[in-house]
């Protein structure tokens, strides 16, 4: 955000460029790079959880296997998010983009809660639909994020 120097007012174009650069630098601090495989893997694990929940009336050993796989996938999601979100880097106390965070949580929660509430009434296909929608959103937004903030 440098201008010509002491005693010189920046031109409107210089001011616009300086503010754009400042906005870009602030965004690059908040939106830290993540590995290219992070969002696709996260999307795949979540899709697996939804698809496993869509299995119709599992019984016996199949039910136990499905429960185990759901737990493994859920723990994998938690570990993956924790390792990427809270890994130690050269950035300390980075601010959170709360609007995007709140919207993301709200959308994910809605897609997760909807089949829980209505699968009994409409059928287990709702798990499949919500699973594909959520994983597509995560993969798509994640790829766009990675392209915009690539790993240095």
């Amino acid at each position, binding site marked *: 955000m440098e201008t010509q120097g002491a005693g010189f007012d920046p031109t409107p174009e210089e001011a616009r460029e300086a*503010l754009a650069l400042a906005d870009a*630098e602030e965004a690059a*601090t908040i939106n830290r790079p993540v590995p290219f495989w992070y969002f696709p893997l996260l999307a795949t694990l979540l899709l697996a959880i939804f698809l496993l929940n869509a299995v119709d009336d599992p019984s016996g050993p199949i039910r136990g296997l499905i429960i185990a796989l759901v737990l493994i996938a859920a723990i994998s999601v938690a570990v993956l998010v924790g390792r990427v979100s809270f890994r130690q880097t*050269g*950035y*300390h106390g*980075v*601010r959170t983009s709360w609007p995007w965070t709140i919207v993301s949580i709200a959308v994910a929660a809605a897609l997760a809660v909807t089949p829980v509430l209505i699968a009994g009434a409409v059928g287990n296909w709702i798990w499949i639909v919500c699973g594909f929608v959520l994983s597509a959103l995560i993969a798509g937004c994640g790829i766009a994020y990675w392209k915009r903030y690539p790993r240095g």
Partner: protein
Amino acid sequence: MLSQADGIEFGEIQERIQLSKSALSKHLSQLIDAGYLTDTQILRQGRSRQLLALTPIGRAAYLAHRASLEALLAGTD
């Protein structure tokens, strides 16, 4: 970049703005001498690192500069 974090290490700043170590050190020293930045030695992953952070004065100066640029643009719109 420092306005959106409590602190950023020297190596990360250098990687972001692609300056040599000596050139960046010179610029940062000027900002530290002006009271805009603090420089703290920390230990992370077993290595000593230099953590730079905005002071309240530095943050106020940055925000005031942004505000003056925005006012300049608002005056021309």
